[in-house]
């Protein structure tokens, strides 16, 4: 399952497993989505009492 990343043609691209990079990108996207979820939550108006 080793191959070049789409668009990549260098040594590093050739040496890295596609699945590893896919996992990395997936984790980054997941983190972005979770972060965006928190961001939306923080924007929702809330009555400030304490």
């Amino acid at each position, binding site marked *: 399952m080793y191959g070049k990343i789409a668009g990549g043609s260098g040594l590093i691209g050739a040496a890295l497993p596609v699945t590893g990079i896919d996992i990395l990108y997936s984790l980054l996207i997941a*983190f972005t989505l979770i972060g*965006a979820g928190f961001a939306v939550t923080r*924007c929702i108006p809330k009555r400030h009492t304490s």
Partner: protein
Amino acid sequence: MDFKIVALLPAHNEEESIAATVDALRAQTRIPDAIIVICDNCTDATAEIASDHGATVWATSGNTHKKAGALNYALERVLPQLEDDDAVLVQDADSFLDPGFVAVAAARLDDGYAAVGGNFYARPGGGICGAFQRNEYARYARDNARKHGRVLCITGVGTLFRVSALRAVAAAIADGRLPDSGGGLVYSYATLTEDNWMTLALKHLGLTFVSPKDATMSTEAMLTWKDLARQRLRWKRGAFEDLLSFGLSRHTLKGWGLQLISTLGVIATLAYLGTLVLSPWLGFHPRLWFLAFTVIYAIERAVTVRSRGWKIQLLSAAVFPEWIYDLFLQSVQVRALWGAVWRTSESW
């Protein structure tokens, strides 16, 4: 609210701010019954200025435990004079309480809380470095208010304690129910962040605390990046070491969770930067729909600093400058974790 309040202000060479600090206490709508400035190894005019402004001045002798040592020195003398229902205000000597702070905090003690902390904002100064801190503190205060004052840590900047709570901590240190305090009577010497340690101690004893949004005060922003790095290194390493000290329990679960999330954040940042650096080899495939997330983040940045005014909101909406600030803080966090794991020695 019919109880005595004693204010304790540990001070090490605070001649520039001590007058305003004491004046702010004397301008409270509920003025403390005693204001005691604890001069800790001072070599400047702190004692004279504090005395001139009406504070009682004590001086430590041979204290090597800095703020915690100065506080324990004073508490050892003050606590025997007070009833369980009385209160002790512990605050930094460079923090100025807003006029209603003591009254608001005292009222919350009457609601049954063992300690009442405040929400702090940073005073002007420090250029762009100070501006970032002011944004950060504004967001922290906003979050606290939205959580109804249920904070993770009662601040050392200014907190009002019920005397019974401080006595309970001292007793629990003495009989081993709390982790080793390094010889500290009430405040631990075995921590870099005595307020965080105190918070965990209160939690472990089943005592409750709150930081009401109306209990406000100002504190000094770190004026240089170097000072800021030093401050945050101490905070982050102290928080992590305190969690290690108290172990894993329901009282520390949230703290551990936040450590995990922030560590994941560092890893995500490194991975993101890594993919950017490697993009010539991996390929660069921007997705237009992904820009929507940037818009969400931009809105979040602007909304959460609304209290700072529209100009700051606009700047925050640019995202990138504050991202650089976050990178700075994350780099400090990596250093703090590294130091805690390998137990490197630092001078604070």
